[in-house]
Protein backbone atom coordinates (compact mmCIF):
# COMPACT_ATOMS: atom_id res chain seq x y z
CA UNK A 1 0.00 0.00 0.00
CA UNK A 2 1.34 3.43 -0.87
CA UNK A 3 2.30 5.80 1.95
CA UNK A 4 -0.34 8.28 0.78
CA UNK A 5 -3.09 5.62 0.95
CA UNK A 6 -1.86 4.39 4.33
CA UNK A 7 -2.01 7.91 5.77
CA UNK A 8 -5.48 8.55 4.32
CA UNK A 9 -6.75 5.24 5.67
CA UNK A 10 -5.33 6.03 9.11
CA UNK A 11 -7.04 9.41 9.17
CA UNK A 12 -10.30 8.00 7.84
CA UNK A 13 -10.26 5.38 10.61
CA UNK A 14 -10.11 8.20 13.12
CA UNK A 15 -13.26 9.69 11.61
CA UNK A 16 -11.69 12.16 9.17
CA UNK A 17 -14.26 12.13 6.37
CA UNK A 18 -12.20 14.46 4.18
CA UNK A 19 -9.50 11.81 4.14
CA UNK A 20 -12.03 9.19 3.11
CA UNK A 21 -13.35 11.45 0.38
CA UNK A 22 -9.80 11.72 -0.98
CA UNK A 23 -9.67 7.91 -1.17
CA UNK A 24 -13.06 7.81 -2.89
CA UNK A 25 -12.00 10.37 -5.48
CA UNK A 26 -8.80 8.48 -6.11
CA UNK A 27 -10.48 5.14 -6.81
CA UNK A 28 -14.08 5.87 -7.82
CA UNK A 29 -13.48 5.65 -11.58
CA UNK A 30 -11.62 2.38 -11.29
CA UNK A 31 -14.20 0.73 -9.04
CA UNK A 32 -17.03 1.98 -11.26
CA UNK A 33 -15.31 0.71 -14.43
CA UNK A 34 -14.84 -2.74 -12.94
CA UNK A 35 -18.50 -2.83 -11.84
CA UNK A 36 -19.68 -1.64 -15.26
CA UNK A 37 -17.58 -4.28 -17.01
CA UNK A 38 -19.19 -6.98 -14.87
CA UNK A 39 -22.75 -5.67 -14.80
CA UNK A 40 -23.05 -3.91 -18.19
CA UNK A 41 -25.51 -1.43 -16.69
CA UNK A 42 -24.54 2.11 -15.69
CA UNK A 43 -27.02 2.47 -12.81
CA UNK A 44 -26.24 -0.95 -11.36
CA UNK A 45 -22.54 -0.20 -11.65
CA UNK A 46 -22.97 3.15 -9.83
CA UNK A 47 -24.98 1.42 -7.07
CA UNK A 48 -22.37 -1.30 -6.63
CA UNK A 49 -19.59 1.29 -6.57
CA UNK A 50 -21.46 3.26 -3.87
CA UNK A 51 -22.03 0.12 -1.81
CA UNK A 52 -18.37 -0.80 -2.22
CA UNK A 53 -17.19 2.48 -0.70
CA UNK A 54 -19.82 2.36 2.06
CA UNK A 55 -18.85 -1.16 2.98
CA UNK A 56 -15.18 -0.26 2.93
CA UNK A 57 -15.87 2.72 5.21
CA UNK A 58 -17.76 0.59 7.69
CA UNK A 59 -15.02 -2.03 7.61
CA UNK A 60 -12.03 0.30 7.87
CA UNK A 61 -11.27 -0.98 11.38
CA UNK A 62 -10.94 -4.53 10.07
CA UNK A 63 -8.74 -3.54 7.11
CA UNK A 64 -5.31 -4.87 8.03
CA UNK A 65 -3.38 -3.11 5.28
CA UNK A 66 -1.59 -6.28 4.16
CA UNK A 67 -2.73 -5.61 0.60
CA UNK A 68 -3.31 -2.30 -1.13
CA UNK A 69 -6.42 -0.35 -0.30
CA UNK A 70 -7.51 -0.60 -3.95
CA UNK A 71 -6.98 -4.39 -3.92
CA UNK A 72 -9.39 -4.54 -1.00
CA UNK A 73 -11.86 -2.27 -2.83
CA UNK A 74 -11.75 -4.44 -5.95
CA UNK A 75 -12.43 -7.50 -3.86
CA UNK A 76 -15.50 -5.89 -2.30
CA UNK A 77 -16.72 -4.55 -5.67
CA UNK A 78 -16.22 -7.89 -7.40
CA UNK A 79 -18.14 -9.76 -4.68
CA UNK A 80 -20.98 -7.23 -4.65
CA UNK A 81 -21.30 -7.34 -8.45
CA UNK A 82 -21.37 -11.16 -8.48
CA UNK A 83 -23.96 -11.14 -5.67
CA UNK A 84 -26.14 -8.73 -7.65
CA UNK A 85 -25.94 -10.88 -10.77
CA UNK A 86 -27.03 -13.89 -8.69
CA UNK A 87 -29.84 -11.94 -6.96
CA UNK A 88 -31.19 -10.93 -10.35
CA UNK A 89 -31.49 -14.62 -11.13
CA UNK A 90 -28.71 -14.63 -13.69
CA UNK A 91 -26.18 -17.40 -13.75
CA UNK A 92 -22.59 -16.54 -13.03
CA UNK A 93 -20.80 -18.48 -15.71
CA UNK A 94 -18.05 -20.74 -14.50
CA UNK A 95 -17.31 -22.86 -17.53
CA UNK A 96 -13.95 -23.30 -19.14
CA UNK A 97 -14.20 -23.15 -22.89
CA UNK A 98 -13.05 -26.55 -24.07
CA UNK A 99 -12.27 -25.09 -27.45
CA UNK A 100 -9.41 -23.18 -25.89
CA UNK A 101 -7.75 -26.42 -24.94
CA UNK A 102 -7.42 -27.30 -28.61
CA UNK A 103 -3.84 -26.28 -29.42
CA UNK A 104 -4.50 -25.99 -33.15
CA UNK A 105 -7.38 -23.58 -32.66
CA UNK A 106 -5.27 -21.46 -30.33
CA UNK A 107 -2.27 -21.41 -32.63
CA UNK A 108 -4.38 -20.37 -35.59
CA UNK A 109 -5.05 -17.04 -33.83
CA UNK A 110 -1.50 -16.23 -32.73
CA UNK A 111 -0.47 -12.77 -33.87
CA UNK A 112 -3.69 -12.15 -35.77
CA UNK A 113 -5.23 -9.71 -33.33
CA UNK A 114 -2.21 -7.41 -33.42
CA UNK A 115 -2.24 -7.59 -37.22
CA UNK A 116 -5.95 -6.80 -37.43
CA UNK A 117 -5.66 -3.88 -35.07
CA UNK A 118 -2.58 -2.48 -36.77
CA UNK A 119 0.27 -0.86 -34.92
CA UNK A 120 -1.90 1.67 -33.12
CA UNK A 121 -5.16 0.32 -31.72
CA UNK A 122 -6.00 3.85 -30.51
CA UNK A 123 -6.68 4.80 -34.11
CA UNK A 124 -8.75 1.70 -34.63
CA UNK A 125 -10.56 2.22 -31.34
CA UNK A 126 -12.14 5.29 -32.82
CA UNK A 127 -14.15 3.13 -35.13
CA UNK A 128 -17.72 2.39 -34.21
CA UNK A 129 -17.50 -1.28 -35.07
CA UNK A 130 -14.48 -1.83 -32.91
CA UNK A 131 -16.19 -0.51 -29.78
CA UNK A 132 -19.14 -2.78 -30.30
CA UNK A 133 -16.94 -5.71 -31.23
CA UNK A 134 -14.99 -5.32 -28.01
CA UNK A 135 -18.17 -5.20 -25.94
CA UNK A 136 -19.59 -8.26 -27.68
CA UNK A 137 -16.38 -10.18 -27.07
CA UNK A 138 -16.28 -9.16 -23.40
CA UNK A 139 -19.94 -10.16 -22.99
CA UNK A 140 -19.00 -13.65 -24.20
CA UNK A 141 -16.58 -14.08 -21.34
CA UNK A 142 -17.65 -15.46 -17.96
CA UNK A 143 -17.71 -12.67 -15.34
CA UNK A 144 -14.67 -14.02 -13.54
CA UNK A 145 -12.66 -13.85 -16.77
CA UNK A 146 -13.82 -10.30 -17.44
CA UNK A 147 -12.84 -9.24 -13.93
CA UNK A 148 -9.36 -10.72 -14.02
CA UNK A 149 -8.67 -9.31 -17.47
CA UNK A 150 -9.60 -5.77 -16.45
CA UNK A 151 -7.76 -5.95 -13.14
CA UNK A 152 -4.59 -7.15 -14.87
CA UNK A 153 -4.61 -5.23 -18.15
CA UNK A 154 -6.17 -1.96 -17.00
CA UNK A 155 -5.42 -1.74 -13.29
CA UNK A 156 -2.07 -3.48 -13.56
CA UNK A 157 -2.48 -5.72 -10.50
CA UNK A 158 0.32 -8.24 -9.97
CA UNK A 159 -0.47 -11.96 -9.72
CA UNK A 160 -0.19 -11.71 -5.93
CA UNK A 161 -2.61 -8.79 -5.83
CA UNK A 162 -5.00 -10.59 -8.17
CA UNK A 163 -4.86 -13.58 -5.86
CA UNK A 164 -5.89 -11.36 -2.93
CA UNK A 165 -8.48 -9.33 -4.83
CA UNK A 166 -10.24 -12.38 -6.26
CA UNK A 167 -9.53 -14.75 -3.37
CA UNK A 168 -8.01 -17.43 -5.57
CA UNK A 169 -4.62 -19.17 -5.52
CA UNK A 170 -1.85 -17.81 -7.74
CA UNK A 171 -2.00 -20.91 -9.94
CA UNK A 172 -5.66 -20.16 -10.65
CA UNK A 173 -4.75 -16.55 -11.44
CA UNK A 174 -2.37 -17.73 -14.18
CA UNK A 175 -4.79 -20.27 -15.57
CA UNK A 176 -7.76 -17.90 -15.53
CA UNK A 177 -5.80 -15.10 -17.17
CA UNK A 178 -4.61 -17.46 -19.84
CA UNK A 179 -8.14 -18.56 -20.70
CA UNK A 180 -9.53 -15.02 -20.58
CA UNK A 181 -6.88 -13.67 -22.94
CA UNK A 182 -7.00 -16.60 -25.30
CA UNK A 183 -10.76 -16.36 -25.62
CA UNK A 184 -10.75 -12.58 -26.10
CA UNK A 185 -8.08 -12.79 -28.75
CA UNK A 186 -9.92 -15.51 -30.59
CA UNK A 187 -13.26 -13.68 -30.42
CA UNK A 188 -11.80 -10.35 -31.47
CA UNK A 189 -9.80 -11.85 -34.29
CA UNK A 190 -12.90 -13.63 -35.60
CA UNK A 191 -15.10 -10.54 -35.30
CA UNK A 192 -12.56 -8.23 -36.88
CA UNK A 193 -12.02 -10.63 -39.77
CA UNK A 194 -15.74 -10.70 -40.52
CA UNK A 195 -16.58 -7.11 -39.50
CA UNK A 196 -17.07 -4.11 -41.69
CA UNK A 197 -15.55 -0.70 -41.04
CA UNK A 198 -18.03 1.98 -39.98
CA UNK A 199 -18.16 5.69 -39.27
CA UNK A 200 -15.63 6.95 -36.73
CA UNK A 201 -17.20 7.24 -33.28
CA UNK A 202 -15.50 6.60 -29.98
CA UNK A 203 -15.63 3.51 -27.83
CA UNK A 204 -17.53 5.37 -25.07
CA UNK A 205 -20.43 5.88 -27.44
CA UNK A 206 -20.61 2.20 -28.17
CA UNK A 207 -20.35 1.25 -24.51
CA UNK A 208 -22.85 3.85 -23.33
CA UNK A 209 -25.43 2.74 -25.87
CA UNK A 210 -25.58 -0.72 -24.28
CA UNK A 211 -28.84 -1.43 -22.40
Amino acid sequence: MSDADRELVRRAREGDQAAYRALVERYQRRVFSLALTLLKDRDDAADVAQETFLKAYQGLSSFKGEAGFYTWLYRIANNLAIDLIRRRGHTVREEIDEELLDPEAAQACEGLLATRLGVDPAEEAMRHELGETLERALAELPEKHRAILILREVEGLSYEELSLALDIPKGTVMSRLFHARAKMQRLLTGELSAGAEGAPVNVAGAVASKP
Partner: protein
Amino acid sequence: MTHRASCGLDRTAVYRYRDGDLPEAERRTFEGHLGGCASCRGRLEDGDALGRLLRIRDDALGEELPKDFAAQLMARLPAAKRPGWTRLLGSWHSHRLLWVSAVAVAAALAVLVPLVVRQGAIDRRSAAENEAGLRRRELVAPPVRPQLRPRPQGMFMPSPARPGAGR
Protein backbone atom coordinates in the same frame (compact mmCIF):
# COMPACT_ATOMS: atom_id res chain seq x y z
CA MET B 1 -2.90 -28.40 -17.27
CA THR B 2 0.05 -27.31 -19.41
CA HIS B 3 -0.67 -25.55 -22.70
CA ARG B 4 2.16 -26.10 -25.16
CA ALA B 5 2.79 -23.67 -27.99
CA SER B 6 3.96 -24.91 -31.40
CA CYS B 7 7.52 -24.23 -30.24
CA GLY B 8 7.01 -26.62 -27.32
CA LEU B 9 7.10 -23.86 -24.69
CA ASP B 10 4.37 -23.58 -22.03
CA ARG B 11 2.12 -20.89 -23.50
CA THR B 12 1.44 -19.36 -20.09
CA ALA B 13 5.14 -18.39 -20.04
CA VAL B 14 4.43 -15.72 -22.67
CA TYR B 15 1.88 -14.07 -20.40
CA ARG B 16 3.98 -14.51 -17.29
CA TYR B 17 6.82 -12.77 -19.15
CA ARG B 18 4.52 -9.97 -20.25
CA ASP B 19 3.09 -9.59 -16.72
CA GLY B 20 6.54 -9.47 -15.13
CA ASP B 21 6.04 -12.71 -13.22
CA LEU B 22 9.01 -14.68 -14.59
CA PRO B 23 12.07 -14.91 -12.34
CA GLU B 24 15.17 -13.18 -13.72
CA ALA B 25 16.88 -16.33 -15.05
CA GLU B 26 13.71 -17.57 -16.79
CA ARG B 27 13.09 -14.12 -18.17
CA ARG B 28 16.50 -14.03 -19.83
CA THR B 29 16.03 -17.53 -21.25
CA PHE B 30 12.62 -16.56 -22.62
CA GLU B 31 14.00 -13.40 -24.23
CA GLY B 32 16.60 -15.55 -25.96
CA HIS B 33 13.83 -17.83 -27.22
CA LEU B 34 11.64 -14.95 -28.33
CA GLY B 35 14.10 -13.77 -30.98
CA GLY B 36 13.68 -16.99 -32.94
CA CYS B 37 10.03 -17.86 -32.25
CA ALA B 38 7.39 -16.12 -34.36
CA SER B 39 4.60 -17.94 -32.51
CA CYS B 40 5.58 -16.51 -29.09
CA ARG B 41 6.22 -13.06 -30.59
CA GLY B 42 2.75 -13.13 -32.15
CA ARG B 43 1.15 -14.08 -28.82
CA LEU B 44 3.05 -11.33 -27.07
CA GLU B 45 1.96 -8.75 -29.63
CA ASP B 46 -1.63 -9.95 -29.31
CA GLY B 47 -1.42 -9.50 -25.55
CA ASP B 48 -0.11 -5.95 -25.97
CA ALA B 49 -2.83 -5.10 -28.49
CA LEU B 50 -5.58 -6.47 -26.24
CA GLY B 51 -4.19 -4.58 -23.25
CA ARG B 52 -4.12 -1.27 -25.15
CA LEU B 53 -7.62 -1.83 -26.42
CA LEU B 54 -8.97 -2.52 -22.92
CA ARG B 55 -7.27 0.58 -21.52
CA ILE B 56 -8.79 2.77 -24.22
CA ARG B 57 -12.18 1.27 -23.43
CA ASP B 58 -11.65 1.86 -19.72
CA ASP B 59 -10.82 5.54 -20.24
CA ALA B 60 -14.14 5.87 -22.04
CA LEU B 61 -16.02 3.95 -19.32
CA GLY B 62 -14.66 6.26 -16.64
CA GLU B 63 -16.48 9.13 -18.33
CA GLU B 64 -19.75 7.37 -17.52
CA LEU B 65 -19.22 7.80 -13.77
CA PRO B 66 -21.97 10.06 -12.33
CA LYS B 67 -20.50 13.53 -11.78
CA ASP B 68 -21.71 13.80 -8.19
CA PHE B 69 -20.66 10.29 -7.22
CA ALA B 70 -18.34 11.31 -4.37
CA ALA B 71 -20.78 13.92 -3.01
CA GLN B 72 -23.63 11.39 -2.98
CA LEU B 73 -21.47 8.89 -1.21
CA MET B 74 -20.25 11.33 1.42
CA ALA B 75 -23.88 12.32 2.13
CA ARG B 76 -24.61 8.68 2.89
CA LEU B 77 -21.68 8.16 5.25
CA PRO B 78 -23.23 9.55 8.45
CA ALA B 79 -26.31 7.38 7.89
CA ALA B 80 -24.07 4.42 7.28
CA LYS B 81 -22.25 5.09 10.51
CA ARG B 82 -24.30 3.44 13.24
CA PRO B 83 -24.70 4.66 16.82
CA GLY B 84 -21.87 3.83 19.15
CA TRP B 85 -23.51 0.96 20.99
CA THR B 86 -24.60 -0.87 17.83
CA ARG B 87 -21.12 -0.37 16.42
CA LEU B 88 -19.73 -2.01 19.53
CA LEU B 89 -22.12 -4.93 19.12
CA GLY B 90 -21.33 -5.11 15.43
CA SER B 91 -17.67 -5.49 16.15
CA TRP B 92 -18.37 -8.69 18.13
CA HIS B 93 -17.33 -11.00 15.32
CA SER B 94 -14.16 -9.17 14.43
CA HIS B 95 -13.01 -8.74 18.03
CA ARG B 96 -14.41 -11.82 19.74
CA LEU B 97 -11.28 -12.58 21.80
CA LEU B 98 -11.06 -8.99 22.94
CA TRP B 99 -14.69 -9.02 24.01
CA VAL B 100 -14.36 -12.30 25.94
CA SER B 101 -11.28 -10.95 27.73
CA ALA B 102 -13.07 -7.70 28.56
CA VAL B 103 -16.09 -9.55 29.98
CA ALA B 104 -13.84 -11.82 32.06
CA VAL B 105 -11.95 -8.83 33.47
CA ALA B 106 -15.24 -7.03 34.20
CA ALA B 107 -16.63 -10.11 36.00
CA ALA B 108 -13.47 -10.45 38.07
CA LEU B 109 -13.62 -6.78 38.99
CA ALA B 110 -17.30 -7.08 39.90
CA VAL B 111 -16.42 -9.77 42.43
CA LEU B 112 -13.14 -8.41 43.73
CA VAL B 113 -13.88 -4.71 44.05
CA PRO B 114 -16.76 -5.06 46.58
CA LEU B 115 -14.65 -7.50 48.61
CA VAL B 116 -11.71 -5.14 48.72
CA VAL B 117 -13.92 -2.16 49.53
CA ARG B 118 -15.72 -4.11 52.28
CA GLN B 119 -12.46 -5.32 53.79
CA GLY B 120 -11.13 -1.78 53.71
CA ALA B 121 -14.22 -0.53 55.53
CA ILE B 122 -13.85 -3.26 58.17
CA ASP B 123 -10.18 -2.42 58.66
CA ARG B 124 -10.95 1.27 58.97
CA ARG B 125 -13.75 0.59 61.48
CA SER B 126 -11.52 -1.68 63.57
CA ALA B 127 -8.77 0.91 63.58
CA ALA B 128 -11.24 3.61 64.62
CA GLU B 129 -12.64 1.41 67.38
CA ASN B 130 -9.17 0.61 68.67
CA GLU B 131 -8.25 4.27 68.70
CA ALA B 132 -11.47 5.18 70.49
CA GLY B 133 -10.85 2.41 73.04
CA LEU B 134 -7.40 3.70 73.73
CA ARG B 135 -8.69 7.23 74.23
CA ARG B 136 -11.36 6.00 76.65
CA ARG B 137 -8.77 4.11 78.68
CA GLU B 138 -6.54 7.18 78.80
CA LEU B 139 -9.42 9.30 80.16
CA VAL B 140 -10.50 6.75 82.80
CA ALA B 141 -7.13 5.64 84.04
CA PRO B 142 -4.26 8.15 84.22
CA PRO B 143 -1.16 7.08 82.52
CA VAL B 144 0.97 4.84 84.65
CA ARG B 145 4.08 6.67 85.78
CA PRO B 146 7.32 4.89 86.09
CA GLN B 147 8.27 3.98 89.68
CA LEU B 148 10.97 6.31 90.93
CA ARG B 149 13.65 5.12 93.25
CA PRO B 150 13.72 6.86 96.71
CA ARG B 151 15.71 10.02 96.51
CA PRO B 152 18.71 10.45 98.79
CA GLN B 153 18.05 13.02 101.56
CA GLY B 154 19.66 16.48 101.32
CA MET B 155 20.30 16.21 97.71
CA PHE B 156 18.92 19.03 95.65
CA MET B 157 16.25 17.78 93.41
CA PRO B 158 13.15 19.58 92.13
CA SER B 159 10.23 18.22 94.02
CA PRO B 160 7.21 17.14 91.99
CA ALA B 161 4.25 19.40 92.32
CA ARG B 162 1.59 18.02 94.63
CA PRO B 163 -2.01 18.99 94.83
CA GLY B 164 -2.45 21.60 97.54
CA ALA B 165 1.24 22.38 97.73
CA GLY B 166 2.25 26.06 98.00
CA ARG B 167 -1.04 27.07 99.60
